């Protein structure tokens, strides 16, 4: 440890490992994990999100889970909450769709309107 820059490097890496505990989050992905969501493959969807995000090293995206959203016929349902923008809800998700959402919406900022089932609160 010789300079403040060395310390900063370690800090940034460590902050990345601690991002679940708050901090710099641009987009929050909230996967509906009710009984019907899980039955329709919500766990796979969440895992794919986590894998894709880790693979792309997106440090400001947080994946979390929530309960039943009520849209049982469209499970798995996923909310994308971006600060200052209306919430986007995707329905009938599967791992392939997740990959597309990550590339298009999260990385490039273009909503994938084909999968959208609702927007706003």
């Amino acid at each position, binding site marked *: *440890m*010789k*300079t*403040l820059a060395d*310390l900063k490097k*370690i*800090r940034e*890496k*460590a*902050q990345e*490992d*601690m991002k*679940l*505990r*708050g901090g710099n989050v641009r987009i*929050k992905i909230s*996967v*509906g*994990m*009710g*009984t019907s969501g*899980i039955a329709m493959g919500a*766990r796979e969807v*969440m*895992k794919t999100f*986590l*894998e894709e995000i*880790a*693979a792309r090293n997106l440090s400001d995206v*947080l*994946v*979390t*889970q*929530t*309960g039943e959203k009520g849209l049982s016929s469209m499970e798995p349902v996923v909310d994308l909450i971006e600060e200052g923008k209306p919430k986007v809800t995707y329905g009938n998700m599967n791992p392939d769709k997740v990959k597309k959402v990550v590339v298009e919406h999260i990385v490039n900022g273009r909503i994938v309107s084909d999968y959208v089932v609702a927007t706003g609160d």
Partner: protein
Amino acid sequence: MSLKHIDLLICCGSGCISAGALKIKERFHEVLREHKATNEVNIIETGCMGPCDYGPVMVIYPEGIFYQHVTPEDVEEIVSEHFIKGRPVTRLMLQNEEKTFSIQKDVPFYQKQIKVALENCGYINPESLDEYIATGGYEALGKVLTEMSPQDVINEMKASGLRGRGGGGFPTYIKWQMVHDNKGAEKYIICNADEGDPGAFMDRSILEGDPHRILEGMMIGAYAMGANMGFFYIRAEYPLAIKRIKMAIAQAKEMGLMGENIFDSGFCFDAEVRTGAGAFVCGEETALIHSIEGERGNPTPKPPYPAVQGLWGMPTVVNNVETFGNIPTIFRKGAKWFASMGTEKSPGTKVFALTGDVRNTGLVEVPMGTTLRELIFDVGGGMIGDHKFKAVQLGGPSGGCLTVEHLDTGVDYESLKERGSMMGSGGVIVMNEEKCMVNVAKFFMDFCVEESCGKCSPCRIGLKQMLAILERITSGFGREGDIEELQRLGESISKLSLCGLGQTAPNPVLSTIRYFRDEYEAHIRDRSCATKVCKDLMHYQIDKDRCIGCSLCARNCPVKCITGSREEKYIIHQVDCIKCGNCYDVCPVKAIEKEPGMHPDTVAHRSELGKAVNRYEDL
């Protein structure tokens, strides 16, 4: 590839560990294995989160959900419902009559708190240097070493107004300046973690929960005064704190944050741990220094102050754990920010260990100047049960008690001292109306007599005399003039004792006499303890109308002083009764009552026997 999407923070402060936190942690590992979900959850042991009374507690991120009173049986439900299905378990959240507090920061206990020294306690894994760095750790040290001169550091400390958190409230910068100005070759810095007051656990919790913070604070101090060697003096009763600080030192050395030429500034520093053998007097700085030197832990007169002639005759600074805990944040956020909190003469925040008859016992940090009412009723959640607040003892055996009329007093060094109490290290013992103040004073006096090192006679002999008088009063042999004698002794001991232990030991007695003189008088004149705590000044009685003559009390009496029959009911022979309370506990119809005051039979018996029973007669 990380699939982890949950951080599970389990409080592993000593309070939660004794409530079973480690078993719960093991159970989480097991259950997650069963659910094949070990790769989704980070299980992190943290230091004390504060609300020890709710323990074992845990917080689950990213949501920040707070669970309390968790048992190993609850783990299965938390994993299958919350972790797998995303449905938090409401049953385990903190609830009151009106609402459920799901998120940690909404819990009323945390609302009025501002955490500086406890910033990371319960938030990071204390055994991980990386997590400390992630929260901005060692940034202050880097800034100090690369951008500031030692004098700049001291000036910044002066501007912050930080005062010693060990109890005395001496401005920290003055000690640093004295050692800085002393041109000795060898200088030492010592962290005083010999926390011995009954009911105090602030220092332990900080050391256990955030050891790197203390190390960083110490290194900043060492740089300012020109010391290259530091010692942590920790009592041996704190094994976890010792382990964590040793681990922190090893980690810092490995990363080059300690050792030679830190941050390429030419500053070198090393630190070692010394364990104390559990003597209260070793919290006094000269005694502590002698103990580190390998001598008997006795205090020596000041001057010479340690800043002039301390460890091995070299200039030495002794600072408390919490004092060091504030320093990194002062340099990261600025002296102005720090001074903006608290009161003008006592800036910043103070950590308190809330204990006694208060609902939320635990570790809290509030700005200086917060009133006792806010501390006890808002943060502390008020009294347990339907009991009334009677008194609060601040500063442990060195402090004094305050009463209902002082509830609106702001907690800072001066206000407390004016009212006959003191800040001390931060132990706050809350008492309800069932506590006998004479007995409380006796308890603290007993502690001080035990812990007196015996070097100076006012403390060694005087405290013993005070204790004898208190024992005489509580056993029903008190005489007129005892109160005045206690005051006279107390005042002389305060003036004449060599060190802080003796100087402050009479405080609990003096302050209880000041605010509860009527209780002392009732003990002496009426031979009566209104709270029925002092056994000699109360008695048990059987209510004949309610007694069903079951004989359970008589059969359970260890001294066979209860006689009677189904027809005539039972009576207690007062002279033989040892007040063990067995009869009171076993009576199925609650016919036995505790009554204040000595029973007339006992009074008559005592006056008949006179000297034979009064071992205080010649005192």
